[in-house]
C-alpha cells in the first residue's frame, strides 16, 4: 500500500495551501514536514530533493514533485477531479488560471511593504468585483448547473471556493452581488470532505500573522 503523500513547506498557506485543499477535498490523508529554519530548506536543497531549489515539494507515488501547477495537475488527474476529456480539462484550466492570478495578488499582499498595501488592496477588490467574480458568475449562470464544468465536482470548484474564503477574509461584502458564487461556496463547503477540512483542528492553515511572516522571511531569505 502506498504511503501517504508528504508535503514539504513552511507552516503556513503560501503556495502549498491549494494542494492541501485539493488533497483534503479528494479525501486523501497526507503528512506534512514543516520547514522551520533556513537550515531545513538548505538540507532539502543539498540532498537533491528540490528540482529548482524551491518548495512546495510533495513526495507522492515514489516521486518528489515540485512546481505548484505540476503537483496540482497530478493530484487532480489521479483523483478524477480534472474533467472527463481534454475539452473539459481546457475549461477547467482556463478557470483555475484566473483563480491563480487573483490568488497571486492576494499572496503578494502579505509580503508587500506597508506603504503599498492600500493600493494593492484596492486593486484586489476592483479585480475581484469587475473581472473575476463576474466571469465565474456568468459561467454558472450560462449552464445553471451545480458545478463549473461538466455538471460534476472538479478541481475548478475547489480552487474557486478556496479563493472565495480568502476574499471573504479581505472583505465579506465583495461577494454580495454574486448569488451563484455564494451558492457554490455553500454547496462545496457542505461536501463531507470539505466540511471536515473547514473545521478547527484540520490541516488547513490560518492567515499569516506578523510572527510567522518574520519566520518565513528568515527561512526563504526574503528581505
Amino acid at each position, binding site marked *: 500500500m502506498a504511503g501517504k503523500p508528504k508535503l514539504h513547506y513552511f507552516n503556513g498557506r503560501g503556495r502549498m495551501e491549494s494542494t492541501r485543499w485539493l488533497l483534503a477535498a479528494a479525501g486523501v490523508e497526507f503528512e506534512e514536514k514543516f520547514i522551520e529554519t533556513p537550515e531545513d530548506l538548505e538540507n532539502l536543497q543539498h540532498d537533491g530533493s528540490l528540482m529548482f531549489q524551491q518548495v512546495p515539494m510533495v513526495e507522492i507515488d515514489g516521486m518528489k514533485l515540485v512546481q505548484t501547477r505540476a503537483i496540482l*495537475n497530478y493530484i487532480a488527474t489521479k483523483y478524477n477531479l480534472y474533467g472527463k476529456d481534454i475539452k473539459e480539462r*481546457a475549461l477547467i*484550466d482556463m478557470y483555475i488560471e*484566473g483563480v491563480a492570478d487573483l490568488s497571486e495578488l492576494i499572496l503578494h499582499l502579505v509580503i508587500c511593504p506597508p506603504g503599498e498595501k492600500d493600493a494593492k488592496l484596492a486593486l484586489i477588490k476592483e479585480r475581484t468585483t469587475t473581472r473575476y467574480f463576474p466571469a465565474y458568475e456568468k459561467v454558472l449562470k450560462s449552464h445553471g448547473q451545480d458545478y463549473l464544468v461538466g455538471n460534476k465536482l472538479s478541481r475548478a470548484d475547489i480552487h474557486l471556493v478556496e479563493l472565495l474564503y480568502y476574499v471573504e477574509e479581505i472583505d465579506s461584502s465583495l461577494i454580495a452581488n454574486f448569488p451563484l458564487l455564494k451558492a457554490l461556496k455553500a454547496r462545496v463547503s457542505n461536501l463531507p470532505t470539505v466540511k471536515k477540512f473547514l473545521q478547527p483542528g484540520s490541516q488547513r492553515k490560518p492567515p499569516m500573522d506578523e510572527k510567522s511572516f518574520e519566520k518565513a522571511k528568515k527561512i526563504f531569505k526574503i528581505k
Partner: protein
Amino acid sequence: MAAKPKLYYFRGRGRMESIRWLLAAAGVEFEEEFLEKREQYEKLEKDGCLLFGQVPFVEMDGMKLTQTRAILSYLAAKYNLYGKDLKERVRIDMYTDGTLDLMMMIALVPFKPPEEKEENIALIVKKAKTRYLPVFEKVLKDHGEDFLVGNKFSWADVQLIETILMMEELNASILSDFPLLKAFKTRISNIPTIKKFLQPGSQRKPCPDKQYVDVVRHILQF
C-alpha cells in the same frame, strides 16, 4: 474538416509566442488576427470572447480559449506532445512550468522602466544559469536520450528550445557551460517542423521593439 486555430494577439511575442511555437512544432497551421487598435480589443470583450478580459485568445475546436497555460496544455494533449502516461506528464509539467516562469519574466522586460531593465536582465540570466539550465543539462546527462522525457519529442522540448533561443538573445554565451544543451539545441532545431518555423517568413515573431511596446500600452491602456 476542422477550421484552423485562430490566434488573437498583438503582432509580437509576449505571452502568445509559446503557443505559436507549440502549434508550429506540432505541424499545425494557424491563422492570426493582430490587435492594432483599441477598438478591436473592445470588440472581443463585447463579444464575450475574453473570459477575464485578457489576451492571448485562441479560437479552436469550437472553444474560446484564454489563459496561456490552459491553451498550451490543451495543444500538448491534443497533438500527443504530453507524454504517454501521468508520470511522464507530471515531469513535462514540472519542466515547462519552470521555463514558463522564466519566459514570462523575459516577456515583461520591454515594459520595465529603462533604469530597471539591465538589472532585470541580469537577474533573468542568473536564474537561467544557476537554477534552470543546470537542471535540464542534468536530465539529459542522466538518461542520455535525445529528448527530455520518455525518449520522445514532447512539449517540454519545444518549451526548452524556445527558452534557450530567447536566453541567447539576452546573453549569447549562455550555453557555454552546458554541452548537452548545445547538442540538444542543434538536434531540436533540425526537426523539420521546428526548422521550418526557424526560417524567415514563418509566423515566429521578432524581438519586441518600441513600436510593439507602444501598441500594447495603447490597447491595454497602461
